[in-house]
């Protein structure tokens, strides 16, 4: 079975190393991965602003590229959340429904489908603060939510615990939103910037050297805030660690 690899626009444009790590990791794990050229965007930025008309083109193109695959994997919780919960600017044909039901976020694919229990090539001897984007947390249910008092669980933590040398530190507000929120980051830049600053300071105060996430959009925002404020943190995507990055 060939799995289609969907790479979000911001990863393709500014963080190709995350795409490379995702691809290499899946290949290492024996997955037959294909990356169709000509990808653009899943339509989320337009749809999140209520502009269904503007989202149509991107959504239709996404379907054209990926409808032929049995499964699609995408290293982005927010994009997969959009695909799963919304993605309705175009007619909901059988083809579209199949795609929506068979698109996986990378962590959930590794944890729930491949059920990976070992990353023997991985070593990351650093203190890390784990950041779950709100899309992966409250929609894709990557981990338990602090508001609900659930029995604690965390898919990214399960995967990362298999990495040699890794150490986890927890910030005071473990699942408060970091403030990216898509176009919110520019439309409400003051609040967004403040949320990002608070988030990186919280992780730094807990002793984190790195912030790790399955969502590059959050990382991009937090990294921008940390660099502006001089908070000495480094940022890395979970795929990079699992793929064997040492730093």
């Amino acid at each position, binding site marked *: 079975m060939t799995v289609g690899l969907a790479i979000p626009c911001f990863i393709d444009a500014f963080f190709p190393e995350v*795409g490379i790590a995702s691809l290499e990791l899946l290949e290492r794990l024996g997955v037959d991965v294909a990356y169709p050229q000509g990808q653009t965007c899943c339509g989320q930025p337009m749809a999140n602003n209520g502009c269904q008309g503007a989202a149509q083109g991107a959504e239709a193109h996404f379907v054209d590229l990926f409808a032929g695959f049995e499964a699609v994997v995408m290293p982005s919780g927010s994009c997969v959340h959009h695909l799963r919960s919304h993605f309705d600017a175009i007619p909901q044909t059988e083809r579209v429904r199949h795609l929506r039901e068979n698109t996986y976020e990378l962590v959930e694919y590794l944890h729930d489908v491949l059920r990976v229990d070992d990353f023997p090539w991985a070593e990351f001897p650093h203190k890390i603060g784990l950041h779950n984007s709100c899309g992966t947390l409250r929609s894709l249910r990557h981990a338990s939510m602090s508001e609900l008092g659930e029995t604690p669980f965390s898919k990214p933590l399960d995967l990362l615990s298999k990495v040699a040398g890794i150490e986890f530190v927890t910030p005071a507000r473990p699942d408060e939103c970091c403030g990216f929120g898509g176009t919110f980051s520019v439309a409400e830049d003051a609040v967004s910037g403040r949320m990002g600053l608070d988030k990186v300071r919280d992780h730094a105060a807990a002793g984190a050297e790195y912030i790790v996430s399955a969502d590059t959009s959050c990382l991009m925002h937090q990294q921008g805030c940390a660099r502006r404020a001089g908070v000495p943190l480094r940022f890395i995507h979970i795929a990079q660690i699992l793929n064997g990055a040492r730093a």
Partner: protein
Amino acid sequence: MSATTGHKPVDHAAAAAAFVADTPHLAFHDKRLWELRQKRDGQMHGIPEWQELRDLASAIKEHTLSRLPEYLEQFEAQAQANGVRVHWARDADEHNATVLRILREHNAKTLAKSKSMLTEECEMAPFLERHGITITETDLGERIQQLDGQPPSHIVVPAVHKLRADVARVFARTIGGDPDNSDPNALAEHARMTTRPLMLDADAGMTGANFLVAETGAVVVCTNEGNADLSANLPRVHIVSAGVEKLIPRQADLGVFIRLLSRSALGSPITQYTSHFRGPRDGAEMHIILVDNGRSKRLGQEDFWTSLKCIRCGACMNTCPVYRRSGGLSYGAVYSGPIGAIINPAYDPARYAALPFASTLNGSCTNVCPVRINIHDQLYKWRRLIAEGGFLPRKKVFGLRVMGVVLASPTLYRLATASARMAVRVLPRALLYSRLNAWGRDREVPVAPKESFAAWAARHRPAKK
């Protein structure tokens, strides 16, 4: 929400930016409300049936809303049998006129009132004052705001955006006191001593209602100060203002709601005073005004009627990371925060178009809501209605249309992203971080990579199919 509200759109982002810039106020506001969220969590952990209580509360409210006319009629009959005079008001104007009529019937010139968001909605205070009635807000937070000429910023802690020094200055300007003595105990004592005579002398008293019990005709009011009880029990006239959505069917249902309300709001097991008014004292009168003011219209909205389940706990505000950093006044409406963002556009989509966008859609609000309102889903749905209704700023619509075109075309997309990488690499800092770069106000832009992922893949993983 009333005739006096204009259509000028609320600019949440600008108001929020001003709030963020005021670091001492911002820091306290965020810390205090997060503390309330944590206390709420603490209460939740102590109650194994917490999620079941939320399920019950949600189901009781949805049932009641689906049979609201029947329960209102039952409530009215019970209340009247208990000696309560029941009035009905279609809108804010009728509500205000009814209050004035009752006051005039008793020659009442002074009114002591406890907290009621509905009276804020109806803009009752300016109306009554124009007709010669003197109103005293008896809740300390409301009184501070009244003296400062500001509306409440939070539905449970109305002056949470103020520091003690602000309160000292407001008091010094209005009810006397040393502007430099900001000891909260001294300030609260001063408020107690000056408000008490006003309650003792008041001709009439007014309260809101947290719950109306159809089965018994009882009005339930929850406070921590006891000011509602004084406002209601001192004068010979007690007026209750209540929205029609406050109904619950049975007295026993209070066993669910009272257990959820204060825990969700303040993280305390119950309010100091949970008061139940079923009938007037001997020689006194009790009136209740049942108010629609747009609620029936909201009830008919398929995607949004469940927002009427709201029990006014404020938990959504406490948990909202955007609210904590913008302050309630930035929403420009009686109801602020997440619940405000899904209620206000129903009344005036032009004015409140920005509110559903003052959110990252993170969903924390939905998780803390004791009556399970799917707030963040409703925020998303409002965004669509606002966009389709043409209420988005023209510049934003244009920008999103351009984005839509670029992101639908692989060629345009490649061009745009390559240009962005080039700009980041090449532009001098002063140009890259100009006024036009909203991202760049508080953040650095990402470092530009050598090539896109697609370019790397074209070389290293040429397409097989």
